[in-house]
């Protein structure tokens, strides 16, 4: 693997790792592991932990994918590996 591709891959893996940490924290963290603690917080008619488990985590998942798409498109351009623009 040439240096360029190796650097691109490293940035890609780092981005994915960061996003998946957030993915883990909102669903497994807020929605499961710390659900009882968060449930003591009232949030717009919900217990907060319950809200994360049944609503909030899904909204965050959607946002994470679009952040990933935007950042990867930027990365593709930066490294000149975007398809169809030569």
């Amino acid at each position, binding site marked *: 693997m040439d240096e360029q591709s190796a650097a691109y891959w490293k940035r890609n893996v780092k981005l994915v790792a960061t996003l998946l940490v957030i*993915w883990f924290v909102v*669903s497994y963290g807020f929605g499961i592991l710390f659900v009882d603690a968060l449930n003591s917080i009232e949030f717009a008619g919900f217990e907060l932990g319950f809200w994360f*488990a049944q609503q909030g985590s899904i909204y965050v998942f959607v946002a994470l*994918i*679009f952040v*990933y798409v935007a950042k990867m498109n930027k990365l593709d351009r930066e490294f000149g*590996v*975007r398809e169809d623009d030569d």
Partner: protein
Amino acid sequence: MDLTTLTYIAVGLSFALYIGIAIWAKASTTGEFYVAGKGVNPVINGMATAADWMSAASFISMAGLIAFLGYGGSVYLMGWTGGYCLLAMLLAPYLRKYGKFTVPEFIGDRYYSRTARIVAVICLIFISFTYVAGQMRGVGIVFSRFLEVELLTGLAVGMGIVFIYAVLGGMKGVTYTQVAQYCVLIVAYTIPAIFIAFQLTGNPIPQLAFGSTVNGTGEFMLDRLNHIVTELGFLEYTTTNKSTIDIFAITLALMVGTAGLPHVIVRFFTVPKVRDARSSAGWALVFIALLYTTAPAVGAMARLNLTETVQIGAVGDPEGNLKFEDRPDWMERWESTGLLKYEDKNGDGRIQYYNDANADFAAKAAEYGWAGNELSVDRDIMVLANPEIAQLPNWVIALVAAGGIAAALSTAAGLLLVISSSVSHDLLKGTFTPNMTEKQELMAGRIGAAVAILIAGYLGYNPPGFVAQVVAFAFGLAAASLFPVIIMGIFSKKVNREGAVAGMLVGLVFTMGYIMSYKGIFIPVLIENVPENWLFGISPEGIGVVGMMLNFIVAFSVSKVTAEPPEHIQRLVEDIRVPKGAGAAVDH
């Protein structure tokens, strides 16, 4: 117009639409048959993926499951959406870059092994058939309740429709029909939810009504639900009695399983570019989230409506329970399907609905003169009965019937297609008869799809005992077999043929063995399915996670002590990691 006529019209119109699309989108090459010629717009593909993914279980069963499980139902909500993050970031773009037709093909090429490919085909066929049997059952329920036809007739019609657009149109036909099916199913799902949310709380948006106060009470919906159900001896709605580790494992198994399901992965082969595969996963999740954030509101509202319909006054007051003869029409209608049952155990002519498995409360109930719970409601009817419970007009009920069928057919078609392509492309063209022409391969694909439809129909009519367990099975196997080998194939250059085959087999055998011995599938129950007997406290539904870890461990260990993958394979891995570059020429 009466309900049956309206339902015939709604279902008939939707079928005409699907057939029209099938004729318009006929596939003429294997590329179109397998991957819709790789020309699908990412937003359109997102919509098709949403319909492909959301099955009869999502549409018909999930809100009902949540209604009765409360917080425990969160495993399905998070588990069946979170997998899209994994798909978008860990699988879809790289597999699209590779640019072939099937999942086993990638596995076979990456691990330079015909054995790996065949093992992958076996996993795929097993996963897809168990899953498709559940869809056919969904079609059967909708037909027998709303169209009042025999199950067999209903199945035959459903199979006929799928036959037309999957066999003729292949992936191209399936894609555009799925788009239509998504529109039908999402409208059918949200309209009753909006009506009910408005009736109950004055807020028409279900996601917000879920956290609003119930009309005439000043009490938040979930607080009210918590106190009503606990008064009847049920578990508080916002809690669960499952252990944290089990909730964790089930959620993870469903997420990883989602990302490993071949009929979902293959949808990302149909978009033109790598970046489209990424955004398409995002769009898919947007369309899925519309239903998945509505479902928990529907579940909570249905539970509240059901409980308050039966418990009309104070708990314990002899006048507090609904008289059987005063029961609403919808209960009467569902009794005829056998999915709702009433038995007047204490002979007072009223309906007592409470948790008689709760010993403390059962003692109290006995003092009221109650002799046990008298109402049993199959959770599968909650969504279908919802519009009737909320007394919505008949056309809404007809629409829900069409939506349920759309959800089942769209998933069935996607599954049948991956089965037929793995037979014609992986087994015949790729392994046993490599000399066949494209025309012969296309014909084999069509015949494969036709045979798969017949088998699916048979499974729907004679459901094997394990249909109810397909969730555990299909997801557990996908999580333990396909997902890890694909991930390792992309993220590691060192995992080799020996490692991948050993990993898949260990993951598969362990997970199947565990589920079979607790659930008694194919074999008698070997170990009683109770939490005390579970490995690490993980139920068969969540055990795919352990299978997945075993797969990773075995694959890495075996790869360490055997020869490295050859040079050209390592280069292949480098190529699929970059959207453009040396390996860009992989478009058929």
